[in-house]
C-alpha cells in the first residue's frame, strides 16, 4: 500500500521560495562552518546547477552519462572566447555557452543514445575523453592547450567600452556585469557573523534558482512524466505510441546545456578555461553528487554537490593541529591515538571520508540522502507500519 503523490502547486511554490531564501543567504549560514567564503559558495551554486542538469538526464530517464564534463569544458571555453571577442560582460558569455554546449550535446547524444545501459555510458565516456585530448593537444589554437585559455589585453573585446567602461590601464581583466565587477565582495557583519557577499556568487545563484525552477517545471510536466516512463519501462513506451529516442535526446541536450551554463559560470570570477575541466574524473564527480544526494529527486543533486565540494575544500584543509584544536577536551592519553586515526580521514585523506559516506548512503539509503531523510521522517511520524506493508507487497 505504498502511496506516492506528487506535491501540489502550492507546496512547490513554498518549496521554491524557501529554496531561494536558503540559496541567497548561503554566505551567512555557511559562515559558522567555515564555508561562507565567496569562492566556495560560488562552487556550491555552480556544481549544484551542474548536478541539477545531470539529474534531468540520469534521474529521470535513467541514462547514466559518464561524459558530462565535456559540456562543462565546452561551456568554459565558449565563455572565455566570448570574453576575448565580445568583452568582459558575463551575460553574452553565459548565453553563448548554453548554445554551444547544447549543440555539442545534440551531436554526442545523437550517436550515444543509439545504445543503452553500459554501452551508452562507455560511448559518452569515450566522447568526453576525445574532447579532453582534442582540447589538450590537437585544438591548441582554440584551447591554448595545457596552459589554458585566458583573456589578454590585446584581445578585441568589441563590446567593452560600448556597454561598460573597462579599465584602460594594464591591470588584470575582470568580468563586469554592466558596471559591477564580478569579483566585488561586500564585507559586513550580520548577527555577529562576519559575512562576505560576493557579486559573482549572486550572479551564479540567480542561475541556480532559475535552473532549479526550470527543473521543477520539467519534473512536474507531462514531458518529465514521459522521461520517467522511459526509465521504468522503455519497451512499454514504444508500444504506447511514444517515440523514446527524441525524448532521451531532449533530456540529454537539456542536461548538456545545464553543464555548459555551469562551465561558463566557473569562468565568471576567474576567466580561465583549461582542458582538465573535461577530464573523466570530473564526469565521475557529478555522478557521485547526484547519487549521493538522490537521483530523481529535485533537491538531492544540489545537496550532494554541496557535500562533495565542502569535503573537497574544507576537510582537505584539515591537518593535525586543527584536529588537536577540536579535540582538546579529550584526556591526554586518548588524544594521540584518536588524532592519528582521524587524520587518515582529513587533509589528503578526504577522499577516504567521501568514499565511506558514499558506501553508507548506497548501502543503507539506496535512494540517496533526500529519499533516506524522507523515509526516516515517515517512520518517525508513524508511517512505519505503512512502509513495511509496502515492502511486503513489493516482495
Amino acid at each position: 500500500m505504498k502511496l506516492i503523490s506528487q506535491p501540489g502547486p502550492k507546496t512547490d511554490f513554498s518549496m521554491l521560495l524557501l529554496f531561494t531564501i536558503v540559496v541567497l543567504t548561503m554566505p551567512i549560514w555557511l559562515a559558522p562552518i567555515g564555508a561562507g567564503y565567496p569562492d566556495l559558495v560560488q562552487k556550491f551554486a555552480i556544481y549544484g546547477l551542474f548536478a541539477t542538469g545531470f539529474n534531468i538526464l540520469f534521474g529521470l530517464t535513467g541514462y547514466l552519462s559518464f561524459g558530462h564534463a565535456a559540456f562543462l569544458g565546452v561551456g568554459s571555453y565558449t565563455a572565455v572566447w566570448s570574453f576575448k571577442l565580445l568583452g568582459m560582460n558575463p551575460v553574452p558569455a553565459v548565453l553563448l555557452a548554453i548554445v554551444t554546449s547544447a549543440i555539442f550535446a545534440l551531436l554526442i547524444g545523437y550517436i550515444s543514445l543509439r545504445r543503452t545501459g553500459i554501452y551508452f555510458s562507455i560511448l559518452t565516456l569515450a566522447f568526453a575523453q576525445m574532447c579532453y585530448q582534442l582540447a589538450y593537444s590537437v585544438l591548441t589554437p582554440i584551447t591554448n592547450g595545457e596552459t589554458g585559455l585566458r583573456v589578454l589585453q590585446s584581445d578585441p573585446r568589441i563590446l567593452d567600452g560600448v556597454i561598460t567602461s573597462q579599465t584602460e590601464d594594464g591591470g588584470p581583466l575582470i568580468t563586469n556585469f554592466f558596471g559591477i565587477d564580478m569579483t566585488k565582495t561586500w564585507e559586513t557583519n550580520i548577527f555577529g557573523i562576519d559575512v562576505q557577499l560576493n557579486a559573482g556568487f549572486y550572479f551564479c545563484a540567480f542561475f541556480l534558482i532559475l535552473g532549479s525552477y526550470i527543473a521543477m517545471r520539467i519534473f512536474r510536466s507531462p514531458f518529465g512524466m514521459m522521461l520517467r516512463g522511459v526509465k521504468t519501462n522503455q519497451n512499454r513506451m514504444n508500444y504506447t505510441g511514444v517515440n523514446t529516442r527524441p525524448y532521451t535526446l531532449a533530456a540529454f541536450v537539456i542536461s548538456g546545456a545545464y553543464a555548459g551554463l555551469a562551465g561558463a559560470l566557473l569562468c565568471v570570477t576567474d576567466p580561465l578555461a583549461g582542458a582538465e575541466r573535461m577530464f573523466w574524473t570530473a564526469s565521475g564527480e557529478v555522478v557521485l553528487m547526484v547519487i549521493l544526494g538522490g537521483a530523481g529527486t529535485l533537491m538531492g543533486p544540489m545537496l550532494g554537490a554541496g557535500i562533495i565540494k565542502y569535503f573537497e575544500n574544507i576537510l582537505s584543509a584539515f591537518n593535525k593541529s586543527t584536529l588537536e584544536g577540536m579535540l582538546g577536551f579529550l584526556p591526554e592519553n586518548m588524544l594521540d591515538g584518536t588524532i592519528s586515526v582521524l587524520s587518515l580521514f582529513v587533509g589528503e585523506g578526504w577522499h577516504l571520508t567521501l568514499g565511506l559516506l558514499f558506501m553508507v548512503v548506497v548501502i543503507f539509503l539506496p535512494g540517496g540522502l533526500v529519499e533516506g531523510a524522507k523515509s526516516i521522517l515517515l517512520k518517525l511520524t508513524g508511517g512505519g507500519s505503512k512502509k513495511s506493508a509496502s515492502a511486503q507487497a513489493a516482495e
Partner: protein
Amino acid sequence: MAILQVRGVSKRFGGLQALNDVNLSVEEGHVHAIIGPNGAGKSTLLNCFVGKLDPDTGTVMFDGKSLLGIKPYEINQIGVSRVFQTPEIFADLTLLENVLIPSFAKRDGGFKVNWWPRVDRERVVRDHAESVLEEIGLYDKRDEVAGSLSRGDKRRLEMAMCLSQDPKLLLLDEPTAGMSRADTNATIDLLKRVGEARGITKIVIEHDMHVVFSLADKISVLAQGTVIAENTPELIKGDPRVQEAYLGGPQE
C-alpha cells in the same frame, strides 16, 4: 468489413518455418481468437502486427494501411494497442501515471516537449485517465505504485492503459495466463463489458478454451505455422482437424 487483413505471411527463423503462408481476416468489432498448440506461431504472428518482427513475405493491412516496415510506436499511433503475456507496466510509477502516459501519447503524438504545464493542471487528460481507472475498477488504488499490485491487477492496469487510448484494435496475448479461475472470469467479464461498450476489435491469443469460447466471435486455429481452420466457435468445436491438431482428441 475486415479491419485487419493478413495475406500470405511467412516467417522463417533459421531452419524453423515459424509462419507459413498465413491468411487471416479480422472483422471490425469482432473478438477474434487465435488458438493453437505451443510453438504453433501465435506469438510470432502477433509480433508481426506490432512492428516487433517483419515477415519474410506477405502483407498485413490495418484499416487500409500497411503495418509492415513501421515502428511499434507508429503502429500504436494509428490505433493498435497490445497487452503482453507478462504485464508490461511502469512498475515505479503510480497507477494514475501509468494511465496518464498512454493518454498523453494519444493526445500529443509520438514526441512533444510539453515541459511547461503541470500534469495536475491537465484536467481533460486527467479526468479521462481517472474515468478509465474507475471503469476498470482500480480508481481507489490510483496513487499506489504499480509494481506493488497483484498479478491480476497488473494485467487489469495494462488493459486500462490500452483502453485509455481508445484503440481501434486491441491485441491480447494470453490475457488470463497464470490467473485463478475467479480472476479469469473477472477478466472475461471486463473484456465483454468494456469491449462491447466501445466496439473495439480484439485479437486474443489464448490457451484457456473456457476464455476462448466465452469471448470469441470467430476462431482461427494455428498449427505448425499455418491456419488449419477458421470458423465460429460452435463449428470449431466440432472440427475433427482441430481436435486432432490442438485438442489432441475429444475435448475434456
